[in-house]
């Protein structure tokens, strides 16, 4: 039986059905790549997996029990990296990261997180001075500062330079080696080995959202 799975999921947003009858299952150490054209529902599915949205139909299980029975404990073992970066401009990179680190995170681990994404030289720099790629790297550093079983990554490669991109794929590899799960939406190659992939459908012109002002 799979560690993390969803069955017959359907989701409406803005009055329009984004997807339906979507099924996935993931075991320890596996990675799932979400692909598909713009607007096909990749981000929506990730938010569903994170418990921010509830599916309009279907069911989602984590190690055999449905996640909605105890959403808080499901959420406690996942990390989400989305389009919003939760970076406070007046806090330094170090302070920003420290807040999201888990309580008992050692300095060692924090240093590790900064080093991995080459943020160490920026540790004292306030968040508002970061370039777009640096912001994204700071977000990815959360994955290391606060370890979690399930990583939900929405276009994690966006804005990264070559070095950061290979750091990311390295980090994902070692996470999976430790038995972690990864779900990532992407349009570009993330260099993840033997990942399962889920292709989401096309946006159909007749499927317009209902217009509500």
């Amino acid at each position: 039986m799979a560690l993390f799975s969803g069955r017959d999921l359907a989701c409406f947003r803005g009055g329009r059905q984004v997807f339906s009858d979507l099924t996935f299952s993931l075991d320890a150490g596996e990675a799932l790549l979400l692909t598909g054209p713009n607007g096909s529902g990749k981000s929506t599915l990730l938010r569903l997996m994170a418990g921010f949205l509830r599916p309009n139909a279907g069911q989602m299980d984590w190690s055999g029990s449905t996640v909605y029975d105890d959403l808080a404990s499901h959420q406690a073992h996942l990390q989400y990296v989305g389009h919003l970066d939760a970076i406070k401009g007046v806090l330094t990179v170090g302070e920003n990261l420290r807040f999201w680190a888990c309580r008992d995170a050692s300095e060692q681990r924090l240093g590790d997180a900064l080093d991995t994404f080459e943020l160490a030289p920026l540790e004292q720099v306030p968040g508002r001075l970061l370039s777009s790629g640096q912001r994204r790297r700071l977000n990815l550093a959360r994955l290391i500062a606060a370890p979690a079983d399930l990583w939900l990554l929405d276009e994690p490669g966006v804005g990264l330079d070559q070095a950061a991109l290979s750091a990311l794929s390295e980090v994902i590899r070692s996470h999976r080696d430790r038995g972690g799960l990864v779900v990532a939406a992407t349009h570009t190659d993330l260099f993840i080995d033997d990942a399962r992939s889920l292709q989401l459908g096309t946006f159909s012109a007749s499927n317009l959202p209902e217009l509500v002002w």
Partner: protein
Amino acid sequence: MHRFANPGRFLRLADAILPWVCGATVLSFAVGLYWALFASPADYQQGETVRIMYLHVPSAWMSLFVYIVIALAGASSLIWRHPLADVAAKSAAPIGASFAFLTLVTGSLWGKPMWGTWWVWDARLTSMLVLFFLYLGHMALMHAFEDQTRGYRAAAILALVGVINIPIIKFSVDWWSTLHQPASVIRLDGPTIDPSMLWPLLVMVLAFKLFFVTLLLVRMKSELLAARIRALSLAAVRTA
């Protein structure tokens, strides 16, 4: 579609009882209004203006009653996620707000000849004004979101917070006005209301209640039908 199974039954039920409630409303209004406007005596002090009371007092009572209905609906929506409760709260709020507004308007129409001004900062008047604002807040919040279910939930939470606060508000406003006006010239309460005026008043109160039920059923029906039309057109898009 299981979400609408229950409302479907409700729609059938509403269709069945609506004619009766509607008839009763018309009947009680006919009796009440005739009695109030023609058959009851004029007040020896206030003269004919006293007849405003037959609109004023029932709508004052109804506006409080409706807010409690909304809060109860909010509670059942939050606890049992009952879809009909949301629809009921959404449909009832504008009716209650209209009652509060009617109270304010009839009150100030009454106040002009009685006190010489349209508005007096009397405790009861002021509480009614605050209640009217509470209604406005509820309605505004209900419509403030793109996603109707978010509006439902937020408005339900607000209604509960509001209903806990209404007694506190009422108490504080009473206290406030007695603090400043120990011997008020304005005394609305006549516990010694004459039976010749009490009975038509009670009939009018009944008429207002029935009127509320009728309106609520009609509004809930149209709300549910609109939701169904939306759902059906979505389904049509899906199969297309």
